[in-house]
C-alpha cells in the first residue's frame, strides 16, 4: 500500500515538473529578442511600435503552442540571427561558441603542467 502511494506521489510530482517545463514565459522571450529599431534595447525594454507588435506575435505563437526555440527560429527566419541575443549555432559563429571552452581547457592544462613541474622540483 505504501509503495502504491509513493508511486502515485512520484507520478504526480513528475507531471507537475513536466508541465512547468512546458510553460513558455513571454517576458523571458522578449528579453532575448533585440529591438531592431532601438539603440541597444530588447523587445522587453522597448515601447516602440515594432516592439509592441513583436510582443503580440510572440503571444500568438505561444497560444499556438510553439516552444521557446521555435519562436526564436521563427523570428530569426524573418529578421535574421541579429534579432536574437543568443543566436543558434551555425558555421559562421561556431568559433565564438567553442573557442572559450577550448581556451579554458588549454589554460587548465598549462596550469596543471606548471603545478606538476613545481611539485616535481620540490
Amino acid at each position, binding site marked *: 500500500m505504501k509503495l502504491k502511494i509513493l508511486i502515485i506521489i512520484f507520478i504526480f510530482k513528475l507531471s507537475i515538473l513536466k508541465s512547468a517545463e512546458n510553460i513558455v514565459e513571454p517576458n523571458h522571450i522578449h528579453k532575448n529578442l533585440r529591438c*531592431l*529599431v532601438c539603440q541597444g534595447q530588447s523587445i522587453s525594454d522597448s515601447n516602440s*511600435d*515594432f516592439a*509592441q*507588435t*513583436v510582443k*503580440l*506575435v510572440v503571444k*500568438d505563437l505561444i497560444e499556438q503552442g510553439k516552444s521557446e526555440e521555435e519562436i526564436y527560429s521563427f523570428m530569426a*527566419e*524573418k*529578421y*535574421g*540571427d*541579429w534579432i536574437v541575443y543568443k543566436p543558434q549555432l551555425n558555421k559562421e559563429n561556431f*568559433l*565564438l561558441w567553442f*573557442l572559450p571552452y*577550448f*581556451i579554458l581547457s*588549454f589554460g587548465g592544462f*598549462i596550469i596543471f*603542467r606548471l603545478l606538476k613541474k613545481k611539485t616535481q622540483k620540490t
Partner: protein
Amino acid sequence: MQKIIKIITISISTAIIFVFYLSLNKDNNYNTESQIGKKLNFDKIESIDEDKYLYIKELKGKNFVLINFWASWCGPCRSEHPMLMKLKSEKKLKLIGINFKDKKSNAKIFLKELGNPYYFIGKDEVGKLSINFGVYGIPESILVDEQLTILQKFIGPLDNQDLDDILKKINKV
C-alpha cells in the same frame, strides 16, 4: 613540450585577434541580406474591403510581385507614391499594397488623392502581418519573382535608383 605550448598559445592569440578583426569589421546594423532568396510564406491576405482575400496560389507562377507596406499617416509613403504609380504600368509586375495600422477611410482618401497603383490592397490592422513578412517599419517593399522567392527588400521610400533596380530585375528574364 614547452615548444608545443608556445605554438598553441600563439595560435590561440592569432585566432582571437582574427575573430576580433572579423567582428569589428562586420556591419551590425539590421540589413535584409538574410532574407534574399527565401520564399514568401503566407496563406492569404485579408483585403481592406470586407470578406475578400488574396491567396498565395493566385500569385505563384504568374508575375513578379512588389509587396508594399504603407499607411495614409506615413509621410515617406506619400513621397514614394509617384514611384509606385510609375510601376503600375509594368505588365510583368503586380503591386500588392498592405495598409499598415491605418483607418480604412483615411487609406481610401489617400488613394483617391494620389492614385491607386495596387492590384490588391490588404490590411494589417495591428501589424502582425508585417512581422510575418520581416518588416520593421514603413514604407517597406519586397520584390519577389514568379516563384515567390524574395529578390530584394527596400527599406524606406522607393526612389529613382530603386525603381531602376526593380525594372532591371523584372525585365532581366
